[in-house]
């Protein structure tokens, strides 16, 4: 209990102490608190700053490496391009050099080859000379030919003259005009006259006028031109004096058309010709050359009934199918029978177209 008592005795003190101490504490509490906050804030600040600094350092390192990586990459690219461009420039320059040489060489060789041009021009001038010469020669030849032809013409003319004047030739007794006795040599014409053949006096050949003369108007009349009478008397003739027949009659006789006899006019194979003609006409009218065949097949089944004539057991008879007259092959002298032709009557065909002996028309 003592303790209690001590304690109780001290409790006052303790309480006092407690109060005192608490009050002291209270007195410093704010200060201390502030101090603690300050210390803590400072410390924390330091800590965070250190941390951030650390982070920054780390970031810088990372960035440094990354950027250097990127930078190096870019740098490599740039270097590559640069070297490429440099090389290309170099190559181009070299190519230009090569091309320059080559092009110069080629153009000088094939296009503007001076020596070739010179050669060409020389060749052209040579050709020119040759052509000039050839043309000169050609012209000369032409001229010579012309001259020759002229001379020949002249010679012919002179020959003709000599033939015309042949009567001036001197004879043994009488000297001609070209053979003067007072001269030493006879005139050259004399020699020419000696050589020439005398010209015989020619009958003036009555040549018919070429086309537009009235005498041949009958010949060129075509039947289809215009309607005209059978005979028109020619009008440029004079009536002749003397006991002559009337001119119209004579002309009629003279210009009468050819009248062949019936035998000549009508061919003996007329029938054949006519048939041929008929066939040709038929053929011309045909639209189609092929035969028109029936569409049905009826005709195929039709039975062929031969002619009685040909189906005889004695063989076919040619009478009536190949010949229509009696034939006697034994009498033939060649392998064919003669064809029978009827003679025409002269009297009928010439009636009224001949002169009688007395001069009358019969």
């Amino acid at each position, binding site marked *: 209990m003592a303790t209690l008592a001590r304690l109780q005795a001290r409790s006052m003190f303790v309480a006092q102490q407690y109060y005192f101490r608490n009050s002291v504490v209270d007195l410093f509490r704010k200060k201390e608190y502030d101090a603690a906050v300050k210390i803590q804030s400072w410390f924390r600040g330091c800590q965070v700053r250190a941390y951030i600094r650390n982070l920054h350092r780390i970031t810088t390192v990372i960035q440094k490496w990354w950027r250097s990586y990127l930078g190096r990459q870019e740098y490599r690219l740039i270097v590559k391009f640069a070297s490429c461009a440099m090389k290309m420039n170099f190559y181009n320059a070299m190519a230009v050099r090569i091309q320059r040489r080559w092009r110069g060489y080629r153009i000088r060789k094939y296009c503007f080859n001076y020596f070739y041009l010179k050669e060409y021009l020389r060749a052209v001038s040579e050709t020119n000379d040759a052509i000039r010469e050839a043309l000169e020669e050609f012209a000369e030849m032409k001229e010579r030919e012309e001259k020759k032809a002229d001379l020949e013409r002249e010679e012919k003319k002179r020959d003709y003259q000599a033939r015309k004047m042949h009567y001036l030739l001197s004879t043994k007794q009488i000297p001609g005009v070209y053979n003067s006795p007072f001269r030493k040599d006879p005139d050259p014409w004399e020699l020419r006259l000696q050589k020439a053949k005398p010209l015989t006096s020619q009958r003036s050949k009555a040549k018919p006028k070429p086309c537009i003369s009235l005498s041949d108007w009958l010949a060129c009349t075509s039947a289809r031109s*215009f309607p005209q009478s059978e005979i028109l008397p020619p009008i440029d003739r004079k009536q002749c004096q003397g006991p002559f027949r009337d001119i119209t009659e004579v002309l009629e006789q003279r210009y009468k058309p050819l009248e062949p006899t019936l035998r000549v006019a009508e061919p003996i194979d007329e029938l054949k010709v006519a048939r041929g003609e008929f066939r040709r006409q038929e053929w011309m009218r045909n639209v189609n050359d092929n035969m028109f065949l029936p569409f049905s097949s009826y005709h195929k089944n039709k039975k062929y009934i031969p002619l009685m004539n040909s189906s005889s057991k004695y063989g076919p008879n040619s009478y009536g199918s190949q010949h229509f007259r009696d034939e006697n092959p034994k009498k033939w002298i060649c392998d064919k029978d003669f064809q029978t032709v009827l003679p025409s009557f002269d009297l009928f065909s010439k009636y009224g177209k001949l002169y009688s002996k007395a001069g009358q028309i019969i």
Partner: protein
Amino acid sequence: MSQRQVLQVFEQYQKARTQFVQMVAELATRPQNIETLQNAGVMSLLRPLLLDVVPTIQQTAALALGRLANYNDDLAEAVVKGDILPQLVYSLAEQNRFYKKAAAFVLRAVGKHSPQLAQAIVDCGALDTLVICLEDFDPGVKEAAAWALGYIARHNAELSQAVVDAGAAPLLVLCIQEPEIALKRIAASALSDISKHSPELAQTVVDAGAIAHLAQMILNPDSKLKRQVLSALSQIAKHSVDLAEMVVEAEIFPVVLTCLKDKDEYVKKNASTLIREIAKHTPELSQLIVNAGGVAAMIDCIGSCKGNIRLPGIMMLGYVAAHSENLAMAVIISKGVPQLSICLSEEPEDHIKAAAAWAIGQIGRHTPEHARAVAVTNTLPVLLSLYMSTESSEDLQVKSKKAIKNILQKCTYLPALEPFLYDAPPNILKHVVGQFSKVLPHDSKARRLFVTSGGLKKVQEIKAEPGSLLQEYINSINNCYPEEIVRYYSPGYSDTLLQRVDSYQPLTK
């Protein structure tokens, strides 16, 4: 009345008709009678006689009509208006050859005057019958028909198209192959008339195979035939490169060059025309002609004739030289320039001079060498005088100016340029001074010569506007010389010297 008396009446009538027609036909041959005949109403009288029973009278009436229509276009029009053509066309198909000939003659005489009259003939349907006449046996009929067709085709492209459409071209080509010279001649002329209008027509003629036959006849001795053949070939060749090449492929070179030596002037002219028409198309064709020696032959030909016959040759040289510098060089070494300058100074007519000036310009415009070749022949002063002359035509002036300009711009041959400093007008002087300004900086001898010959003095006297091209040229000439020389030759320098003498105060003490 006896039969004889009756017939006598007819006889007399026929005789009178014949005599009338023959007299008219004969009178129509003289131009002085024609007016009288026309006033006497000959047309209306001849027309019924075309339908006469007697063929001779028909023929002679047609002949007389043809002669009348041949004379002038009034009479030809009267024939058209008189409705005579259908009758003629009808009988052209029906009658004998003499009548056909006469009828074709009338058609030809009518058709030759004007396109309208030719069209009237075409409208009558004459072409078909004329084409049928081309197939006739008689060469005279063919000739007359070909002649008429040629005269119809001559006027314009439509008419010749109509002729071609009627199928005339192949038959005309057949006609060329006939032995008769006259027929060949006229058929060739008709082909030429057909093909001259357009490339298509020429192509039709070529398709009918005309070229080979025409080319064969170049060597024919008959000069009139040669004329027509050459003319036909040139009319074919003129249209296009293809046609010209086809003509060349018929191997006309060097045969055609012999025609340049022909006696006949027109053969020469047509041959030159043919060569010109071929040369003008491409450098290759020109080259072919040059290689065949055509240029030399042409130059000789130009030298041997006068006037219009030269003209195609001169133009041909110009065309050849215009194609390329090598060809121009070929013309120069063939001695073409002296010949052309002779033409330039000799010919009295302006259009030939103009052609020669043009050709010279074409030769000289390529390189300094060409220009020099032209300049040494002393052609430039002639050209200048032509340009300056008031008598020359406008065309000649333009052409010679162009030629001078072309040549001067290339010319570095100073002795030839020098006279131009004294007598050239300013627009040409510009080029002359320009040439000097280009040459002098590089040639010391020329610089010296330029001073001694008085060129520099002349240049200083030229009054050029400051800033103009001429002034620039003058300045560049002046820059080639020391300043004292330039000042010495400047006009008025003696005065300035004298002034200095006046103003000079000697130092006397």
